[in-house]
């Protein structure tokens, strides 16, 4: 079945090099390969084969020595940052980066939690799979209120590309016809629970500006022939996705784009290849290839291509660019504007509320839904902004019945107590804010002046904080969530706000640092994710974002990437690249 070609040394000049194998890299490789270009995908980490390397899949909690918890000592020595990710456990830790080997620094008095997944497939194996389009209100937000630079594109520019990736990847959801959240090409949505249907009805009556919809997620609820041809089948609702899924039921590089790319016979993969920097030719003013340090033995090698796509993640791609210095670009390749590394953003997931729903104790659910509900941003344009801050937030959330986890903290001794633990408990429903983070010049990453990692690459140094705008937004979101649940009749409603204690980074939606823009003086990339300064270098991943919006960004990474490849190949054919 496998037709990927793994290579180590090669003097071949490829048509295209794709650095990275996550969501963006997988799509770039697939598109190049299907257009007939000889493509080299470079991955810094190990190979993860679909199915056979999902080493924890199918295991019950009792099959883990610590019952899914990670050993103290291991965390202390190797996973001090990764442990903060909700999906980090003994079942998934092998797909997370190792903090000991992958150090970075943060400015004194600030913190940034950088979650890594350095292996073939990258974070596509671990992602939360929520998939939403950005709307024209999102693309217009910077222009409308003056924060950040204007996106050089609008929804129309991405519309057909969104449709293209949605059809192939498989996005479940329902059409809602909301101006702030364009519909996708949908597979059937997952069902709501009984309390969710009640709360939806209540909220939509009580708050005419709000709608509660089923989360849109990259799961095959009803696979099409296109998905079955990829070797993927229907989602079995295990919701253990981060262990890897042999059913291929959620979109990942391994389940979807990689087999498609491999099938063409045009794909080569260089694993264990840590990209040090890009090779720039002063005469042709183009990149000619990449310098690589071997992940294991630290030997160096080079790979060559006509075009290079940087898909190494937001911080990863920008690190490579900053470290690619030449007489023309002493401060990093394609950085004539000086904005490379700046305008770093994440999402602000730091407020919410939870309460008990009464009246549905004779109802339960069956299966583990790998998705939740969503209340799309209802402050999506300046006329809808609150008085004391700009932009808005969405709420994600959902309901569940409490179980023994909760019961283990309740009083009780003996057989009645034991029996109560085996029964479904109270219905609980929660809302969590997904707040927009403003693009600010001060929030930046740079290369450390002296420290390097074991591959000899300067460490990333991050200086990123929540601004007053984000703090005010979370205070409001906390209050709003509390009010909505209380009005809906929930009991024991509690709310939280962790913006003062949780670092940026943990939404794992880091974007910005190599932003797009119409003006080469204030942006790194043009409207096709092509470097203003270097025509054969493209950066279609999250670093290209001009604003964070509130939507989970991966679907937009996909659409930007396939559009950029299409443009790039046309430019190559026209011999402008």
């Amino acid at each position, binding site marked *: *079945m496998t037709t990927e070609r793994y290579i180590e040394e090669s003097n071949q000049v490829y048509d295209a090099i794709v650095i990275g194998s996550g969501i963006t890299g997988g799509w770039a490789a697939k598109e190049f390969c299907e257009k007939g270009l000889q493509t080299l995908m470079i991955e810094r980490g190990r190979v993860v084969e679909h*199915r*056979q*390397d999902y*080493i*924890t*899949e*199918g*295991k*019950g*909690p*009792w*099959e883990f*020595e*610590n*019952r*899914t*918890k990670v*050993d*103290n000592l291991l965390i202390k020595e190797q996973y001090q940052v990764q442990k903060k990710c*909700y*999906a980090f456990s003994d079942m998934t830790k092998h797909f997370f980066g190792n903090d000991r080997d992958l150090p970075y620094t943060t400015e004194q008095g600030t913190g940034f939690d950088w979650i890594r997944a350095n292996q073939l497939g990258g974070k596509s194996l671990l992602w939360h799979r929520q998939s939403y389009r950005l709307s024209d209100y999102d693309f217009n937000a910077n222009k409308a209120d003056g924060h950040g630079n204007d996106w050089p594109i609008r929804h129309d520019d991405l519309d057909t590309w969104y449709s293209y990736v949605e059809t192939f990847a498989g996005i479940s959801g329902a059409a809602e016809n909301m101006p702030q959240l364009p519909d996708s090409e949908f597979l059937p949505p*997952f069902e709501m*629970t009984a309390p969710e*249907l009640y709360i939806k009805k209540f909220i939509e009556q009580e708050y005419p500006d709000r709608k509660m919809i089923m989360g849109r997620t990259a799961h095959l609820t009803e696979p099409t022939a296109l998905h079955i041809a990829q*070797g993927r*089948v229907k989602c*079995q*609702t*295990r*919701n*253990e996705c981060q262990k890897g899924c*042999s*059913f291929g039921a959620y979109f990942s590089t391994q389940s979807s784009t990689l087999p498609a790319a491999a099938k063409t016979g045009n794909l080569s993969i260089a694993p264990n290849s840590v990209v040090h920097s890009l090779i720039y030719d002063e005469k042709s003013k183009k990149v000619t290839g990449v310098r690589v340090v071997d992940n294991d033995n630290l030997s160096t090698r080079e790979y060559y291509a006509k075009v290079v796509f940087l898909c190494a993640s937001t911080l990863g791609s920008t690190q490579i660019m900053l470290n690619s210095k030449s007489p023309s670009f002493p401060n990093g390749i394609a950085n004539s504007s000086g904005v490379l590394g700046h305008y770093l953003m994440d999402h602000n997931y730091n407020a919410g509320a939870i309460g008990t729903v009464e009246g549905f104790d*004779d*109802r*339960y*659910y*069956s*299966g*583990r*839904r*790998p998705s939740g509900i969503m209340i799309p941003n209802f402050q999506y344009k300046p006329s809808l902004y609150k008085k004391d801050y700009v932009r808005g937030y969405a709420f994600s959330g959902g309901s569940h*019945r409490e*179980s*023994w*986890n909760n019961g*283990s*903290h309740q*009083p009780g*001794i*003996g*057989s009645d*107590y*034991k029996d109560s*633990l*085996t*029964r*479904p*408990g109270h219905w609980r429903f929660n809302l969590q804010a997904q707040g927009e983070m403003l693009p600010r010049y001060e929030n930046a990453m740079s290369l450390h002046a002296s420290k390097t990692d074991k591959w000899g690459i300067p460490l990333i140094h991050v200086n990123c904080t929540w601004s007053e705008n984000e703090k005010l937004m979370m205070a409001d979101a906390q209050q709003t969530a509390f009010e909505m649940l209380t009005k809906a009749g929930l009991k024991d409603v509690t709310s939280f706000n962790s913006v003062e204690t949780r670092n940026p980074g943990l939404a794992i939606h880091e974007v910005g640092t190599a932003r797009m823009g119409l003006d080469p003086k204030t942006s790194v990339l043009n409207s096709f994710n092509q470097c203003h300064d270097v025509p054969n270098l493209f950066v279609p991943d999250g670093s290209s974002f001009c604003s964070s919006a509130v939507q989970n960004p991966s679907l937009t990474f996909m659409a930007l990437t396939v559009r950029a490849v299409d443009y790039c190949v046309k430019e190559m054919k026209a011999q402008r690249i």
Partner: protein
Amino acid sequence: MLKKPFTNNNHNPHAHVNEHEGYRGVGMTNNLNNQDNQQDLSIEQQNRRLFMGKMVGLFGLTTATAVLAGCSVPMAMQYKNRSGLPDRPLFSEQEMTTLADIGATILPRTDTPSATELDCHGFVQHQLVHCHKPAQQQQSIDIINKIDEHSEKHFAKPFSLLSPLQQQQLLIDLEQQTNFSVQDSQGFAFLKALIVFGYFTSEVGATQALNYQAVPGDFVGSIPIDENTKGAGSQAYY
């Protein structure tokens, strides 16, 4: 679905001492281990069969076999956790005995095994050593001794020799802070939660006391239930 009666009628667990480990409590599970192994194997086979069945149904036999030939599932299903063998014993023999009886009092044998029969005390020791802080380890040692001290003071014998009713009442008093301090009840609450965690993440706890669904197949948002419906034994995150 995977239900199989737990059979251990031939053994009185308290009659056995594990020579290798040198203390009761953990050792008593040795006999249970044999029982466990047979039972685990059976459930494992069923799980694997279920997983295989799903794969075959969805991919066809040839593909499913090819997929699983190089797949982790056979290996995964073979792995056995024997949590009762700590590499760094935390509890003394006496403390382990008391802890075992605390477990059997909180979660006694009903139509499913007790916490002690599932080696939750062995699990607690393992988990404290590997996944908890020294302060939590000490707190657990302290509360076990506090329970014995209390028992000696009020009944002139250790907790393990009290009647089941006396044991239950003592732990209820502890939870309600009757003749116990707030700190005592907090220490106990932590230990109790760990025992419960150990119970329901064990194979028997998840598949017999609860309704474990390795591969649910579909999500249905609303189904009717009655008072006999078991909770889901499988969770996305523990």
